[in-house]
């Protein structure tokens, strides 16, 4: 009987891992860094002069941000997510609203991720009217004008990676919203770091998506209580 005890414990561990509200010991995590190798493309200066409300928000000129590489070679604004391997329904949860801000006539954050049907609060912190226009393929396309200080609340019903967002009034403005059916996603910070927590143990395909540099995928097997490390390199 004694020799079967470890088997029971492991089996019990796996059985409880997929249940909602499982303890941290029974879940796994994947964290790591996305790096950029080589010479990063030169950002270009953005001319905001036609709208003085935008220009005066920037003491030094703003630059394009389609490829942002940090000091240590870390690539910012990469969406890292579980593409395959999740079995069963995602854990129940009521995530708080995600927030997208228009500040200095730039989308902040430039790249964001949220769940399908999660509330998205869009804020205009500028002194000028913006026009918020996501252009999805898999979701409904809408287009709204947003004066300063007027909040807009929306959501996206279907998974899509990722929806480009533009402002027709200020043509340099560009953002991306990635919508997922599950909560296992992260957007890399300025050092290229990401951390996918509370994953049920198993084998997964993890994909890294960048708006200009494409996507890369890797397979990883994660076990409970043993954090896994993953690295992606874009060129």
């Amino acid at each position, binding site marked *: 009987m004694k020799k079967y005890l470890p088997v029971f414990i492991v089996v019990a561990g796996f059985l409880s891992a997929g249940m909602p509200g499982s303890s941290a010991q029974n879940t796994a995590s994947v964290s790591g860094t996305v790096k950029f190798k080589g010479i990063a493309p030169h950002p270009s200066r953005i001319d905001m002069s*036609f*709208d003085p409300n935008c220009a005066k928000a920037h003491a030094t000129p703003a630059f394009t941000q389609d490829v942002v590489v940090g000091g240590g070679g870390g690539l910012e604004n990469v969406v890292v997510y579980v593409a395959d391997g999740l079995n069963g329904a995602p854990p129940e949860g009521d995530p708080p609203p995600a927030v997208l801000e228009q500040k200095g006539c730039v989308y902040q954050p430039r790249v964001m991720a949220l769940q399908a049907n999660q509330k998205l609060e869009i804020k205009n912190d500028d002194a*000028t*009217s*913006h*026009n*918020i*226009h996501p*252009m999805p393929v898999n979701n*409904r*396309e*809408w*287009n*709204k*004008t*947003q*004066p300063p200080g*007027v909040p*807009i609340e929306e959501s996206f019903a279907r998974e899509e990676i990722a929806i480009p967002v533009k402002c*027709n*009034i*200020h*043509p340099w403005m560009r953002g991306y919203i990635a919508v997922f059916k599950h909560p296992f996603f992260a957007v890399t910070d300025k050092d290229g770091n990401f951390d996918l927590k509370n994953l049920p143990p198993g084998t997964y395909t993890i994909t890294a998506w960048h708006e200009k540099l494409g996507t890369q995928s890797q397979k990883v097997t994660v076990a409970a209580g043993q954090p896994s490390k993953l690295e992606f390199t874009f060129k």
Partner: protein
Amino acid sequence: MKANGGASAGRRFFIRCAVRASNATILVLLVSATSSLAQESHVGKLTGNAKRGRASYERYCIFCHGPYGDGRGENAPYLDPKPRDFTAATFKCRSTPSGSLPLDSDLYDTITRGIHASGMPSWKPLTRQERVDLVAYIKSFSPKFREEQPAAPIEIPPEPPTSKESVQRGAELFQSMNCWACHGKEGRGNGPSAATLTDSKGYPITPFDLTSGTRLKCGDSDRGIFRDLTTGLDGTPMPSFTDAMKPDQIWDIVHYIAALRSAAKGSTVARGGPNPN
């Protein structure tokens, strides 16, 4: 002979199986095709039927909008603006809020009116029943019409009378809402962002020249302009102003736009002109 008889019997058996399999496939295809052809439309007292609409579509619409309704008919490469892609279910001329499907009557009105300054003609020569049937068939191109319902149509409150003050307020809102960024300070369609505009398919698109006196795409009356400002023209850079302004303010902009249009040289559009629908 026995060997031949055995082989041909085997072949006959194989042929019978193949025929049954292809019949089954044809049946499945027909069922799936006809299930989308079960799409109906309702405009006024008329009910449209996609099966009848398909016959009209293949006679009148297919050359621009394509056999799959994706806007890639034979004529499409030569047209600007491009024919509508019905599979995306995003439409400019609607009475529903931005992001919503159109009502059947919106699609019917567009077919009837045509779209000025584009290759889409007015289909008034078709009977009302033919046009209602076409609406049903057009809806069959996108699964969104089966999965979702259009939102409730927007409300258009009664128009307050125009006045110098209303036109002035409209001019100020034209500034603060940044309409001038695309439509230009004088409304001539030459704003600083105008050259950067693309529709949602990526094709360049020009903002309307409000001083040109020409017809608007979705209907020319003051109510039509109010509706366009409230619903936005989905699939284009023209947004919805429903979160940004109160109805009275939208009417002020309508009066300002009407003043711009009727001031244009040789304009045939009278202030508050008749609705050509």
